[in-house]
């Protein structure tokens, strides 16, 4: 599904030059569940942003679905992103002013989906993650686990080929964390490709492959025994 070769990201300020990613080579096939691990500041999130096309590389090649995306304009990137990728964040990143339903629907608003079709799909996905009964609540009225389920629903509703999760359990207690991980595992089982950044070895074990990073490089790749 995606291939990265010699991909680097360098942040420059007036005085300091920081290499966040250093010549990364990475392949992810369709249907994989990949966990990215490593200490704070090792470049996990930068790599995830590169995969999600939220940031562009300083050099190297990134081919997504057979298309080179390294040099695309922001507007083109937005198009590729919205067709293919769903995001789940550590801090949920729900819009406080919108209801649960409206938050989920937000992902379809930018896809030109007709209203009736939107309603059907939002209902379906809310059912799937078990928050249909909270549809009219505001995010602030939900528990952390419920909020993350809303975020998952929002990531799923546009049927992305790839789901990117940036420490999805980081703000959750153990019980809710497990709940979200099982949900991701189920999605993977249904065919979704998932890339997840996590600090938790236990949660990384849900993935089929674990990529360990240090100082902007991939240190080690380990496949879980099937």
């Amino acid at each position, binding site marked *: 599904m995606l291939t990265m070769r010699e991909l680097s990201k360098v942040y420059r300020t007036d005085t300091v030059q920081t290499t966040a990613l250093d010549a990364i080579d990475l392949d992810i096939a369709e249907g994989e569940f990949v966990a990215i691990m490593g200490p704070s500041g090792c470049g996990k999130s930068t790599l995830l942003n590169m995969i999600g096309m*939220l940031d562009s590389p300083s050099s190297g090649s990134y081919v997504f679905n057979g298309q080179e995306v390294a040099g695309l304009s922001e507007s083109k990137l937005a198009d590729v992103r919205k067709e293919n990728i769903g995001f789940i964040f550590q801090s949920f990143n729900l819009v406080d002013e919108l209801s649960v339903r409206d938050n989920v629907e937000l992902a379809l*608003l930018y896809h030109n989906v007709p209203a009736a079709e939107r309603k059907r799909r939002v209902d379906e996905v809310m059912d799937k993650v078990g928050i249909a009964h909270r549809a009219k609540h505001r995010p602030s009225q939900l528990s952390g686990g419920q909020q993350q389920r809303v975020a998952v629903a929002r990531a799923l509703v*546009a049927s992305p080929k790839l789901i990117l999760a940036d420490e999805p359990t980081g703000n959750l207690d153990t019980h809710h964390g497990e709940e979200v991980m099982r949900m991701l595992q189920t999605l993977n089982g249904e065919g979704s490709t998932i890339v997840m950044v996590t600090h938790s070895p236990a949660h990384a074990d849900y993935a089929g492959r674990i990529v360990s990073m240090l100082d902007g490089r991939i240190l080690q790749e380990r496949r879980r025994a099937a």
Partner: protein
Amino acid sequence: MWRNYLRIALTLLARNRVYAAINIGGLALGLAGCLLIFNYVRYESSYDSWLPDSGRIYQVQTKFNLPGQPARNVQMSPFIVYEKLPGGFAQVEAVTSLAPGKTVTERDGQPVFIDVGTVDANFFDVLGLPFAQGSAGTALPDTNSIVLTEREAIRHFGTADALGKQLSLGAGPGKRDYRVTGVLRNLPRNTSLKLSLLFRRDLAAIPPEQRGWGNFDQQHYVKLRRGADAAAINAGLPAWEKRNIPDAVIDGKPATMSDAVDLKLVPLAGVHLGATQDGGLAPGGDPRALATFAVVALLTLAMAVMNFVNLSTARATQRAREVALRKVLGASRGQLIVQFLGESLVMAAIAMLLALAVVELATPWISAAIGADIRIAYLGPAGMLLPAAALFLVTGLLGGLYPAFYLSRFRPAEVLRANKSSVETPGNGRFRTALVMLQFAIAIGLIASTWVIFSQTRYVETVDPGYRRDGLIQIVNAWRFAKGGEYDAAHAAMLAIPGITGTTRTSLPLASDTRPVWLVKPPGAEEYQSLSYYGVDAEYLQTAGIDLLAGRGFDDRIALDRVPAGDDQARAVRGVNVVINRAAARKLGFRTPQAAIGQTVRAMRGGPLVPSVIVGVVEDMRFRSAREAIEPAFYAVDPDATEVVLVRFAGARPGEVMAALNKVWRKFEPEIPFEARFVDDIAHELYAADRARGMLFAGFSALAVLIGCLGLYSLAAFATERRTREIGIRKVLGAKVRDIVQLLVWQFSRPVVLANLIAWPVAWWAMREWLNGFDIRIALTPTPFALAGLLALAIAIATVAGQSLRVARTNPIHALRYE
């Protein structure tokens, strides 16, 4: 503690320079506009109050209630007031009469007019004008003496030291030398007593028939005794009039003339802004315009204060963390309220200082532009210090109260646990949106009003006046020039000037404030109708370019077309042919102009009835402002009554024609100044006040829009900052820059769109009221309102689009990671 607050307030200002500049600048503009208008209103209301004992001095004004005519008020009053009023009311300490007029003198070889007043011996007892030389006791001992102002003295003698000098005044046989017996200090500009030179009035020389109630040639001023009540005198005046005004016989019937004339004492200080302006020595003020100014100033101030409140509140939400920390460290709610109020007062104080600087700089300039003498004083009853301090306190407290109470309510634990730097409650956002909406409602209302005022002014200036205005010159003061053999010779000389195609004479100049009204009885009717009377010559209708609707114009060869020489009795015996206008035909009850032709009406102006045969009906003319209804008028060939000459020209340079006319005039009238103007200019000047009002509205509209945009700009800055995370989420979910800009622009356009709902009805009502003051007016269409709304919207969008674009372009990962 206070020093700590002050230091924090100033540090905050220094740190948020843009915010501070917008907030303080906007408030300073609003305050400056308000103070400028405040000073102007005070100046306009200060007329004549500088005179000693001004609180005890009253002008006697007259209201005429003549049958068939609208009531009319003048500042003049009948001669009997002088002789009989003190005897009728013990409260009257002194009364004096002042007959205004003008005289002629020669300066540098050119004749010039001087405004004069002819006064009696009591004058300086009532009106204590200040003397520079001489004294009230020694001034004006006889009719050969004069008193002039320093300015007038310097004009004639080159020095204010004029006491005892001789000055030659008057023209023709009336010309003679006068001795200066007093020099007055220059009167301040804020006086209704526009006097440059005073003559002594010889009361004994006034013939008996002019000593009664029918002589309205003079104004009267009375000084009441201390503690006297003018209302009591006004209440007693109707009975006094009954005793002193004899009944008369009109059209064979007895008429109670005391009912036709109502006298009233009006405080001298109220004359300038009073409803009665006819017969005044100086043009009066317009209280309606003043009220408009005051309203507009208050609206602008309201906008600035709203801005101030709005921005303070927006800023305040970002200081939640500071408040929480202070509370944790032991600050009480009261202390926090004091701190925020203090900060707001510091900002208001800086804005007020800036505003005062603007006022100081702008006042001399504005003062010169409107010909006023506005001075800035800080202390004293007319000083600006108290109102400025009050404005400062009100704006400072208003700007601080809401944020103070709102912010001090935060619970520290919640704010700190959420690790947020800002908090926002939904109600707070609505409050600010409502304020922005109100601001734009004011701006839209002002823009729409400006539009309507300019359209209407343009319309009345360009509407067909019923005669040909272009290529027409009006020469006034032609008392002798227009008469007899002198005119015949002058007429030939004027026609010899290249370009001049015709000249004619009339009794009334354009835009005159006098209206000679005759009572006219149509055939078979019982009631009189009042018509304006124009004495003209036979060329008048053609030269002025007035269309004939029915019948014929005047003809020199027809004897009955000309008013016979002599008094009204001669007219009554012989009768006369007249031409009326369309409005007169309607008023006299003729269904068509044609129906009036050949009919005989009977006309009078207090004397005998004159049988008048209508030989022609002409189109209506607007000789006055479009504020006034078309006057029903009739014309008769009466050259002896004319004192205005109209000159028609074509195909020549206007300036050269004017210069050539001046030469002709100087040849025939070397002693009288040449006063001629293009009729187009006179018509233009009629609407100068309306144009000035339009300019004022345009200026304040611009100011209102500017203040509104300042507010919108910084509000958008705060709101986009607050919504950074939401925008990040939307972008991650696939929103493009365009989508985000649309979202934000709509958020800020909505209050502007809603503002129309408030602005339109109010502006529509105000403009309808204003338009109703005109006899002819433009239709009040939705166009100006819709365009004002669109304009405001476009400006609002332009204001927020830049920021929205900036925010929409930022990379979402920053917004999402560092929240």
